[in-house]
């Protein structure tokens, strides 16, 4: 029997045991974003014609939390295991590099989804939400968190210190999520920035995710999902190649 289910279970258990920090804290942060931005921006920002700004904001905040926590799960687990040395417990058993990849990425997806549901539950009492196409919500939620889970693995494998993972998060993941249309529709941007946003894969994740709620998006959801899926395949292929080579894990 494979060790994959146990590694997945262990990775889920790992964040579940500290759920105040891994689920509660991001839910509170998202709620604070909602209160502040909805208070300041409601009625001022131009979004889709029929969607109030606060309702527009909620899916963006949910997806931002999903993405950031999916990244945090795999990256923090790997870097902590490397620093404390307990990574040896998952390197000694007969796990293939594909099983290793799948367990860490799926655990990141579970963390992302659980945090997403928590953020949604915290924000729902303050806004009337629609759920027009739940399938798109799930598809973009899954693919987006899987991409970030794989990116988190790359960061965790590459980094040798916790602050290197933090740099990855602060200087790459955070700007890309903030500039992906969480707080605005890209149609409200000047043409140059609109064009540039199309090179940010996080934009497609949030735009498509939002489509699932309102049935409206900046880009057609099929095109968005194709971009996100292609990005997922590319990041997964790179992560699998790194794992297969044993880079920074097996000398």
């Amino acid at each position: 029997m494979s060790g994959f289910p146990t590694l997945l279970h262990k990775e889920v258990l790992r964040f579940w045991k500290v759920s105040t920090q891994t689920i509660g804290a991001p839910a509170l942060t998202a709620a604070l974003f909602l209160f502040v931005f909805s208070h300041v921006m409601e009625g001022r920002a131009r979004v889709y014609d029929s969607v109030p700004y606060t309702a527009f904001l909620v899916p963006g905040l949910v997806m931002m939390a999903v993405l950031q926590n999916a990244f945090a799960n795999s990256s923090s687990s790997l870097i902590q295991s490397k620093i404390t040395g307990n990574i040896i417990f998952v390197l000694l058993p007969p796990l293939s590099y594909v099983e290793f990849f799948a367990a860490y990425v799926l655990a990141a997806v579970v963390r992302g989804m659980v945090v997403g549901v928590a953020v949604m539950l915290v924000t729902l009492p303050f806004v009337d939400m629609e759920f027009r196409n739940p399938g798109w919500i799930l598809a973009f939620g899954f693919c987006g968190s899987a991409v970030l889970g794989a990116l988190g693995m790359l960061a965790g494998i590459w980094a040798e210190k916790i602050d290197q993972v933090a740099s990855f998060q602060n200087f790459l993941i955070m700007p890309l999520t903030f500039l992906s249309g969480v707080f605005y529709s890209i149609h409200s941007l000047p043409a140059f920035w609109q064009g540039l946003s199309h090179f940010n894969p996080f934009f497609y994740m949030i735009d498509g995710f939002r489509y699932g709620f309102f049935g409206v998006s900046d880009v057609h959801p099929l095109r968005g999902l194709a971009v996100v899926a292609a990005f997922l395949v590319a990041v997964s292929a790179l992560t699998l190649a790194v794992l297969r080579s044993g880079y920074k894990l097996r000398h």
Partner: protein
Amino acid sequence: MPAAIELRDVHKRFGDLQALSGIDLEIPQGEFFGLLGPNGAGKTTLISVLAGLVRADRGTARVMGHDVRKDYRAARSALGVVPQELVFDPFFTVRETLRIQAGYFGMRDNRAWIDEVMHNLDLAPRADVNMRALSGGMKRRVLVAQALVHKPPVIVLDEPTAGVDVELRQALWRFIRRLNRDGHTIVLTTHYLEEAEALCGRIAMLKQGRVVALDSTSNLLKRVHHLLLRLRLAGELPPELRELEHGSTEDAHVLRLKGYDDVERALSSVRRAGSRIEEMELVQPDLEDAFVDVMRRS
């Protein structure tokens, strides 16, 4: 029947350091084998090659006949490694740690064996305690237990008793001896040479990545051709014996002699010098002497 461990021409270099230089070693099933050497000799690198943590630059390594690269699943399933570093996962209790480790090897229903391992290593009273709350000695016991949860036929212990109290050492060796009697192959590295002497049937000594001695423990001991004679005298040590002096304690002289014939000569010298022997002890060479001897010659 394949050898428990088979290494052929294994080389490994880390930058400028040649950690292993053509290791050839075969350990039959059921053996209690010692791997000795000074710090940096390559013992841990060798174990890491077997465990798949380090990839050899050249040569082959097999566990129970399974190549550690090509047939890594079977090779790793057959191997249990107690690492040298005291590492643990702070998120889990002792019982959770052991169940998770067993699960990594695809074993979901071996609670009875996990309970037995915990009982034998005196971990049962702490089974539901978080790893963070354990003392260093208890964490070491958990490391040993983790290596055994999947009942591997080959068990490698990399300095398992470093910094461990006498009680655990005795409990650990009782359990490991039992496993060896049951057919498990044991490979031990330790700096406590008296442990290796008492436990291991055969020993390899490593120096700078090479095997410099490989023989049964008794044959290695026979290679040492000297005896130590400890004398406490009422009077001075005769001048002709001073060149044999190997060391001395506060109240005794220790003489290094080539054989039993020299014992009589030494005693005669003492008598001639008019000194009186208050206490005398003949010390047989031990593995430490053999080790020092091999390291000096190689």
